[in-house]
């Protein structure tokens, strides 16, 4: 029994322009103690799907199931959700400066959460806040606990967010682009802190990012999302060395380190689809170099791909490696890629 089981999650928002289908039938499991990476461009629905599970998307129409420790989070009562948020499932966000309240001390913000969920004295809550700040590597935590967020550096703020998230030893940590707003040198440190906390507390992690480099560092399993749908799911090794979906291939080719130093980066041409009225077929079809006729009319279902168990992909390309390579070659010859204007991928 997985820790979190998401089935057929659909999320849409009513806007002035019409209904935006942000998440369109997404399913995945998270096993206790494991790390699931969710990759995708902006607007792929990766953040919306996790925020919906936490009940943080207001005014959204939601369907599907998200079963956590035997309880469906999508139908849980407000009170139940308040007891789960922070205590069982914690979150950290992209921008640690705006995610911490500028008017309250860092320690106060950690203590507030501890005291909300457990009946402990103020002194004990404070001691735990100091200890948590020490664990995430804040120097002089006994003094810094009384600092305001603006007195912390970017990396320290994210460490403080992690300390807060880990305060009640949650079973699941959702990290929504935790390193995107940070300097490259700090990114790795923050990832290390998350990993260390995960080992120490045995926490499962959902790591949302647009950066495959981050995934390569820490994820056990990877979910690739595009246009509100899951494109491919595989363990990290398979994804990097034997991916199936052309969108995953495109993401890998737009990574600087992947093709070697001499090769030019190859961005995915075109723009992500509008989710106001998504095309009927595969959402990636308009940008796909291997697009076939049926891709434009029939949305491919997620099906087993390749030899690895658990590797699934939503693409009509053959699932045996040799056949796939053959067909890809033919398709590329028939209709050379790069006819669409290259307008930056991720």
């Amino acid at each position: 029994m997985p820790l979190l089981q998401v089935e057929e999650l659909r999320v849409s928002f009513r806007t002035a322009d019409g209904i935006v289908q942000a998440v369109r039938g997404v399913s995945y499991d998270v096993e206790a103690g494991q790390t699931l990476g969710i990759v995708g461009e902006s607007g792929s629905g990766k953040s919306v799907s996790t925020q919906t599970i936490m009940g943080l998307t207001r005014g959204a129409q939601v369907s599907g199931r998200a079963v956590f420790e035997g309880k469906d989070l999508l139908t849980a009562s407000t009170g139940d959700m308040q007891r789960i948020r922070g205590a069982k499932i914690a979150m950290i966000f992209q921008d640690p400066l705006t995610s911490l309240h500028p008017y309250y001390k860092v320690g106060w913000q950690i203590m507030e959460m501890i005291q909300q969920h457990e009946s402990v004295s103020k002194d004990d809550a404070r001691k735990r806040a100091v200890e948590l700040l020490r664990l995430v590597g804040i120097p002089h935590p006994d003094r810094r606990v009384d600092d305001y967020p603006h007195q912390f550096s970017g990396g320290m703020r994210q460490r403080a967010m992690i300390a807060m998230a880990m305060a009640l030893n949650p079973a699941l940590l959702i990290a929504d682009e935790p390193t995107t707003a940070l300097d490259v040198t700090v990114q790795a440190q923050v990832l290390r802190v998350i990993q260390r906390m995960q080992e120490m507390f045995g926490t499962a992690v959902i790591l949302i990012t647009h950066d495959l480099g981050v995934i390569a560092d820490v994820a056990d399993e990877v979910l690739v999302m595009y246009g509100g749908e899951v494109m491919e799911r595989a363990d990290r090794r398979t994804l990097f060395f034997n991916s199936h979906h052309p969108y995953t291939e495109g993401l890998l080719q737009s990574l600087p380190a992947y093709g070697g130093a001499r090769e030019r980066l190859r961005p995915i041409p075109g723009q992500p689809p509008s989710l106001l009225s998504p095309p009927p077929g595969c959402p990636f079809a308009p940008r796909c170099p291997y697009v076939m006729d049926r891709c434009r009319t029939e949305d491919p279902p997620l099906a087993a791909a390749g030899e690895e168990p658990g590797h699934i992909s939503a693409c009509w390309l053959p699932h045996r490696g040799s056949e796939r390579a053959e067909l890809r070659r033919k398709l590329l010859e028939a209709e050379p890629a790069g006819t669409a204007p290259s307008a930056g991928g991720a």
Partner: protein
Amino acid sequence: MTRFLIRRIGQAILVLFAASIAVFLLFFVGPGPDQVARTFAGRLGTPQRILEIKHALHLDQPLYLQYLHWVGNLLQGNLGFDYYKGQSVNTVVGQALPATVSLVVGAAILWIAYGVFSGVVSAVRSRSLLDRGFTTAALFFYSMPTFVLGYTLIFIFAYELYRVTKFFPFSSYVPITTNPWQWFVHLILPWLTLAMVTAAAYTRLTRTSMLDVLGEDYIRTARSKGMPEQRVIRVHALRSALTPVVTLAGLDIGTALGGVIITEQVFGIPGLGWTIVQAIGQQDLPIIMGIAVLAATFVVIANVIVDILYAVLDPRVRLN
């Protein structure tokens, strides 16, 4: 923090200096010394009296000495002498000020409490029936002239409903030191009038500010921590949302303390606004100047207090 305050107080002093120059130019330099002395003396002033006044105000000396003399008196808290009424301006202002303060403080409590409450409810239940109701009420009272509202309230509560609401007087004012209950009763309708026309801006401002804050990342963080929605709104959102409201309240209260002309006229409250209107009618120059200087001082002081409140509310202001 200290440096921030010193800078703000320095600015306040500069503004007051500029205001004093403006008043001086307008009332002393513009008309010229003879005209000033004649106006100060009033219609019945004899040539002898005019000469005396000219000497007392140092009008026979160079302009900068006239100014220094006048400002020197102001700095000692002396607003001048009212030859028309034969008493010092301080006495006249001292009699009028408590009425204005009573009116403004009571009304301000009402309009801030109602404005912030209705604004928060409108933001939290945005687009609900309640939100629309508050918005409509705000627009209705905002677009209503103060005297129309004032006379309407008098008509309804003090006249039509006289049998039910016996205790509402038509107008006039009773000092709190004379009879606290009568003071309160006499001020209910003026308070309501001033508060209702002013509150609209607070409803709208609080609503907008609150909606902005509720979209902030740290509100999402508070919810993701499992904080109950009540606490998210009261502790996390409201404090940030109040910053612009504090600014507006400071300015409004500062301005109103210099005299609430229409409300005081409608209800016959002998406050600063009522006094300055009388003085203008009688061309009573010392009173006009005194109240003008006093009003400017109130606005400047209110601004300094707003700055201090900023620092109290926002540690980023306090600690930088």
